[in-house]
């Protein structure tokens, strides 16, 4: 199998891309850049402009957010075939969290405009992203309700 087909196959394992036709997967794989990170290296930094979406293909990474005092709070750990950075790319805003490599990490870096182009052209992906974001809103409102009932 040639490298591009292998990469396209890897992409198919990511839920967001599962339903895409092969030509699209190949396009993503083809335009993606393979970027590797050493343990402890920062992949994206909170507050930076969002220029790309990342897919972890090897290794694990940790997600942190900074509170108002500048303290880092670890949110979660993500592993192979996770996609991150898409929210800031869609909102054309800045990174909402910092992602750091836990061990040796390999990623596909999909540039923001390729990703947005993709979202624009494939309804399946748009739908998936909407569902994902809707779930997040639900979760935040639930948290807010909890918070209000406590105080």
């Amino acid at each position, binding site marked *: 199998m*040639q*490298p*591009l087909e292998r990469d396209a196959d890897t992409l198919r394992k990511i839920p967001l891309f599962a339903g895409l036709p092969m030509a699209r997967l190949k*396009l993503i794989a083809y335009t993606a850049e393979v970027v590797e*990170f050493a343990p402890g290296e920062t992949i994206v930094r909170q507050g930076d402009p969002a220029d790309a979406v990342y897919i972890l293909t090897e290794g694990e990474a940790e997600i942190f957010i900074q509170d108002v005092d500048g303290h880092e709070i670890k949110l979660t750990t993500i592993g192979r075939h996770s996609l991150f950075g898409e929210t800031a790319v869609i909102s054309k805003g800045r990174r909402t969290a910092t992602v750091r490599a836990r061990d040796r990490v390999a990623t596909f870096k999909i540039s923001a405009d*390729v990703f947005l*182009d993709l979202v624009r052209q494939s309804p399946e992906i748009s739908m998936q992203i909407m569902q994902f974001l809707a779930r997040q809103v639900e979760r935040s409102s639930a948290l807010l309700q909890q918070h209000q009932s406590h105080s």
Partner: protein
Amino acid sequence: MERNLHRYIIKRSLRTQLVLIAISFVLGLGLNPFMLDLQKRIINQAIGKRNFDALLWLCGSFLGAVILNGALKYVKQNLEGYISETMLRDLRGELYNRILRFPLLHLKNTSTGQLVAMILGEVEDLGGYFGLALSTPAFHGAMLLGTLGYMVYANPWMALVSMVLFPIQIVFIRRLQRKVSAMSRDRVRLVRGLSDRIQESVGGLQEIYANDTTAYESGRFRHQLQRIFRIRLNIYNLKYLIKWINNFLEKFGQFLLLLVGGWLIINHPETFNLGILVAFLQAYGQLNEPWRELINFFQLKENARVKYEQVIANFDPPGLRDEFVGDDAAPERPPALAGAYDLRQASVVLDGRTQALDHLQLTLAPRQHVAVVGTAGSGKSTLVQVLAKLTGYTGTVLLDGADLAQLPPGLAGRAIAFVPADARLFTGSVVDNLLYGLRHRRVQERDADLGLGGEDWLDLSPLEVTDRTALVAVVLETVRLVGLEDDLFAFGLRSRVDPARHPKVAERIVTTRRLVAARFAGEDQETAVEFFDRDRFSSYASIGENIVFGHSSHAALALEQLVQHPHFRAVITAVELEGPLVELGADVARDMVEIFKDIAADNELFARFSLLTASELPEYAQVVARMGRGALAELAAADRDRLIRLALRLIPSRHRLGRIDEPFITKVLVARRQFAETLPPDLAASFVPYDRDRYFADGTLLDNLLFGKVIATSSLAVKKVNAIVEEILEAEDLRGLVLEVGLDHHVGLFGGRLSLPQRQRVALARALLKRPDILILDGALVPLESGERAELHRRILMAMKDRTVIAAVERPDLARLYDRVVVLDAGAVVETGTYREVIAQENGVLRRIATQAGVQVAGED
């Protein structure tokens, strides 16, 4: 400028025009009736009387007249062309010079698109008219008079018949033509609007996308096109109606002549004969031509007059700056200005309404560092622009006791430096822009070649340097001061240097290459560099580069042309690489066509990622379709060439396409050796194989230092490569060399290839390199990171010690660094003194602004 078109023409070209008029009279009044008369004589005296000798004589004279006529016309047309072109050249130059004198405020209401359209387009039409302005009426008028005169002389009654239709023509046609003129004027206005729209759309494309108004803008544009279309169509209809009427009247005239002339010949043969009739018909034909030309000319004249007046009006705004001194007449720089400003009742009104400065009073001591503070709209920008002599004002402004308005032209720009918040750069290299402030006058002679270009306009006297080494040192010192050094270093590393022009640079880089290699060999971790190695396949270079493995300035050896080159073909056939290349190309073509077939041709993805251009895609899609039908070996030679061309573009590690296996790589390496060893002598001279001991011109300085390519997959490793390279260059004392190369980095149109902070730093360095007596900053450091601003202010003030600095600052705490603070509110000075004095004032404006900006105001600092 002369507002009347014809006075302008006479002023600029009277002598040539007089020659033209003289030629026109000779042609129209002399030769023309003479030739008509000859025709009559040939028929009546020679043919009619069967006199062969007379026939020969008369025909000979006719031929001579024809030749003389042609020669004079040739001279006349060339003269017209000469007048047109010289006047067009001068007019364009004058209009451009006018732009260079526009008051800055006027630019807000001026459209660049219209200025461009006027100088390039509308003036072009005027150019054509300049040559014809006097000669056409003179020539055709003379032709008309000559012919008429002849007709009256031959037969007054018939002449009257010929002219009977003229009054009708005059009334009718003139009326129609006036209508056409009016429509033409509308058309010009609409077309100008069109160029505005294009310009605004290009500039505001981001807004158009962001507001999703593409359909709206497109519709608006089409609406305007439609209006122009209607007008044009109407003009078209009318023009041909005029033509039709003209033609009809002409033929009708002939009809009258034949009828009346025929009747005369039949009934009164004693008054009229065939010779006269033929001459009359001929004359009548000739009468019509100048007549029509004259009518057309008046049309042309009217259009040209309107156009000229419209153009000139646009180039004569109120408050035009003084005329500047041309070429080399600029005066020597006078003694230094101290910067003691004294403003009395100074006022500036913007757009005829907004009072930006309101009878402002201010006195500044010489050689002080002054910060101007105020809220937005307080007039601080306007004030510093007045001080820099960039904006007109009313009231009095004195500089060192002399009236600022009377400062000799050219002096302000040399002694006063001004940096706004959005400084513009110009197309060219970094160093071109850095030295832009020293191009005031032409320098007669220079001993040393500075290697800069445009040196005859470079006045280095303020820098007190004469040779390149000293100049570069001074420039780099300023670059360091404004914090541009690291950027310049990065530019340098990514620049290409021509080893033929800079043999020393190439030599030193090649020597250092060994140190770099040794250093990387000592690193035990994997490196992010793929070194060039004659015996190894490079997966970060294209297949074509892998085979050629060297650089040639010969166009036939460029990668895209390679497939057609006989030597290359011979090599890949000999090592049996042709088949594998076709197969690789077929794989790549299949993937490219599959991936990109649904992508719109104008999508940026094509330019950024595709191995095929959008226009090549259909061609390759057909090749892929043909491939499906049989073996690759059966493909036509042209198709196989296409596939090989594509395969040669492939960079395996970057594109991750195709199957590159060991046997393939081995063949590429064999081909590489053969290609170099059997290169024909005519190509060998220009071919430099990649060699550890030689500089290669197609690589950047960094590529050459590494003798390899940086692999961009690991960002840490890339940083490490940069650190190692920088360290070695530092140790080898080569940093300066790289910086010098970086000076030649091209900044792009308007400096677009630099970031905003980089542009601003270049502008600051440009101002400082002018060695100004007075430096004026108008929020110049705003685009920089806030943490860097205070430090840079400090460094600038240090460099400008004992000279005047006046800075409109955006943050009140920056004013602390200055000797004195001037606080503006609503266009007037409300507080002034040292920062401590002013900030201590309870309920003061500065205190309020500082508190709002979150600046600590209480206590000592």
